[in-house]
């Protein structure tokens, strides 16, 4: 790491990784998310994973769309380039970037609105291409940044801050990923660092598309336990734009449970979700059966978490394309321009 000419002054006792960097070297700008937002926990998980893997920060490319979740790449790895694309179109940017240089680690961060509504097509096609990247959906069932509309992953029966109930069946990113050919499919919970950090590491190391659907509660727009909701609700004469005028300071929701076990998590809105970790004997190699099993659990109201499917033999976009191993963005002039000597041969077919 010849670059680090002026190392940050760090507490000498801070743990260092193989590159001699501390966890702080993997941090980013201060988060502007709501206190207690699940997304911030995922940010912490990414920092932890990159630190532990001793990834060179500038060899990471961060990509995202638009949303609270998509802002978070600014909050980790400040020494990495980032590309905050337009809403729902991060997969395309990642595809082009990866086409130009597959030698970086690609970390994509998206929201359920970003990936399952406006960006669903691109999300699916990135999986189909088995694009070599880690793709994290910070899944809160709402559009956080635009103030709490249901997203396509909202469960039936979920209540919005405004009191409406969602009646539409959700799109499940995990089932979608299984159908669309993703070669690494995982689910976790923002508050379960024990499970999340190893999954992020595995996803980063996976050669191909690695999806982690991370359930990540939105404290603000799920923030409607009784007393609260009635407060918002009784202010009948205020405008909808004011609905997030007050945000209750909240704590991060944590979860800690064992393989094979299930745990019920209380969300800020008083509702609960049930998580179940895959048991040690879970078979993550059979796409069809994984689908059937996960679907079955969902019917029982349980989200199966862990690494749900993996196929290390999938060929990534470059393998299919037979791209040269040197990144295209570093080819020099002679390698790309055929020069005047080739011209006669080319023109012969036009005369």
């Amino acid at each position: 790491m010849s670059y680090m000419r002026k190392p940050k002054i760090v507490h000498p006792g801070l743990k260092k990784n193989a590159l001699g960097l501390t966890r702080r070297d993997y941090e980013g700008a201060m988060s502007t998310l709501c206190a207690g937002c699940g997304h911030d926990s995922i940010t912490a998980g990414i920092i932890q994973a990159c630190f532990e893997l001793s990834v060179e920060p500038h060899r990471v490319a961060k990509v995202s769309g638009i949303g609270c979740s998509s802002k978070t790449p600014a909050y980790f790895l400040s020494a990495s380039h980032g590309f905050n694309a337009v809403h729902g179109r991060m997969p395309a940017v990642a595809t082009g970037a990866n086409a130009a240089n597959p030698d970086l680690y690609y970390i994509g961060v998206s929201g359920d609105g970003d990936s399952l509504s406006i960006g669903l097509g691109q999300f699916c096609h990135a999986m189909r291409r088995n694009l070599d990247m880690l793709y994290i959906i910070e899944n809160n069932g709402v559009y956080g940044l635009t103030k709490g509309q249901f997203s396509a992953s909202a469960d039936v029966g979920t209540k919005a801050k405004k009191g409406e109930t969602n009646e539409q069946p959700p799109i499940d990113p995990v089932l979608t990923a299984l159908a669309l050919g993703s070669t690494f499919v995982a689910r976790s919970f923002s508050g379960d660092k024990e499970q999340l950090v190893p999954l992020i590491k595995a996803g980063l190391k996976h050669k191909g598309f690695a999806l982690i659907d991370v359930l990540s509660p939105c404290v603000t727009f799920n923030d409607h336990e009784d007393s609260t909701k009635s407060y918002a609700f009784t202010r009948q004469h205020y405008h909808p734009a004011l609905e997030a005028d007050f945000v209750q300071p909240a704590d991060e929701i944590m979860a800690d449970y064992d393989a094979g076990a299930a745990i019920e998590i209380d969300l800020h809105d008083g509702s609960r979700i049930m998580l179940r970790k895959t048991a040690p004997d879970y078979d993550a190699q059979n796409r069809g059966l994984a689908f059937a099993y996960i679907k079955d659990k969902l019917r029982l109201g349980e989200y199966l978490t862990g690494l749900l499917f993996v196929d290390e033999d999938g060929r990534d976009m470059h393998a299919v394309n037979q791209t040269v191993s040197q990144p295209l963005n570093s080819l020099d002039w002679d390698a790309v321009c055929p020069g005047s000597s080739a011209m006669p041969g080319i023109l012969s077919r036009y005369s």
Partner: protein
Amino acid sequence: MSKPQAAERINDFVIKLANVNGTGSASANSLLMKSIFRMGVPVVGKNFFPSNIQGLPTWYEIRLSRDGHISRSGDVDIMVAMNAETYGRDLAEVSPGGVLIYDSTWPRSQELIREDVTILGMPLAKMCNENFDGVRGRILMKNVAYVGALVALLNIELDIIKDLLSETFSSKPRLAEANMKAIQLGYDYALEHFQCPLPLRVSRMDKTAGHIMIDGNSAAALGCLYAGATVGAWYPITPSTSLMDAFRTFCDQYRTDEETGERRFCVVQAEDELAAIGMVLGANWMGARAFTPTSGPGVSLMSEFIGYGYYAEVPAVIFDVQRVGPSTGMPTRTQQCDILLAAYCSHGDTRHPVLFPADPHECFEMAVKAFDLAERLQTPVFVLSDLDIGMNDWMCPKLEWDDAYRWDRGKVLGREELEKMDHFWRYHDADGDGIPYRTLPGVHPRGAYFTRGSGHNARGAYTEDSDEYREVMDRLTRKFATAAELVPGPVTIGNGRSDAAVLSVGSCDGAVREALSILSAEGVNLSYMRVRAFPFSAEVQAFLDRHERVFVVEQNRDAQLRTLLIAETRVDPGKLVPVLHYDGLPIGSDCVVGAIREAMATGAAA
């Protein structure tokens, strides 16, 4: 058949071939055109094909012009009417004194006869059924046979055809033979039954030496190859599809390791145009030269991302091979109807450099230029071609390549430079030309920044601050002023009179030039400027200032170039007289001559 005999016309007439698509006629017609080209005669071919795959009428128009005119003349001197369904209108289209050839295997309706046209029937289907086996061969060879007849009728050298066939089917001599047999069938029939050659005929010249026949999409693809573009992302759309096809073909040959088969390029067929432009931005952000070919509907879909490229300052090259709009329009017809869209594409205050090639030769040059501009200016650049240029074969001077040329990667800070810097500010105008410095991912941690389409300040940080926002926007205005100095300047011809002049763009060029020579013969000498890029160079303003009245010739309904001129120069709009052609066929000189004659006759400016 005693018909009014056409006057002798050497190397200056139009052959139109009316076929059914999917029958192999385009290949046969192209063979015919190529053979005339090899006779040294300037020639241009226009293909009018339907937006379907098989069974509908399709026409191919070949104009021979000893004087080198390249636009449509408006006449049809020889019609090959192979499509029973359009026989009536095809016959009607023949100019008095012209010739019509048809397949006389089946009887022709008696009504469809014209006294002023020489009608030559030959039993093509019958001949081919007798001489070839299999449906495929019989259908295909009918076309080749009428080419053989034309070879005889027009006095084309048979050896040229032979050469062409053996080059084309070099690896399948049997096919070359079959084709030659069909040529001979038609040739012999014509010699035997018709008076050969016709008064309209071909005679060797030497006007095509140093020239090629090439379509604009292939030429543009060659430009991309030579410019060092390595990533192409696209979604198929007529008439741009052949650009990426050609790029891939060239790269297969010149960018593929012969031993390993490894490719020094990556073409991604995107899921749609929104994805294609996103990929192009991603690859350019990474420092690869990347481009996308598309057409109007694709540009509409790319609008959001193109504004992103403008504001976040990411290079991109977009080829818009224009077709007839609005909406899905007529995908196989030509127009110049995306001029305003390209210039101002996307919401908010946005503006983009646009290059306007006039022919395949410029497609090649401007493709190369577009990458240099995109990287130098760090912004999306449009190359606005059209179906006529892109998909038809044009005679152009041979493409040349200067080995001294090196790509201009613009202001990119490398590792060494970053090492020496205290800080890197992405959107800082260090040089006063409005162009900031950029860095590439993966190079150095000090170069890291967060590319975003939301509000950012000169340092590259997020902002919602009014002054910081405006600072960046004002710099972008300065950058666009710099662009005006970098883009290709206009082409100006003549020291004509100052009361009137002509200004045009892109594929109108041939029609305007021919019109000017016709008018000149009538004593009306007009200067002519062809703009080649937006933003407009200073010469454009000067030209407009120099003339009292300027005819603005373009191929769209709403006078989009004229609008752009009055929006972006200080010209008095009253001076600019629109000359518009927008029926989907390439503009002909007749349209231009007619409009100018009329306006000059009525006097004062419109």
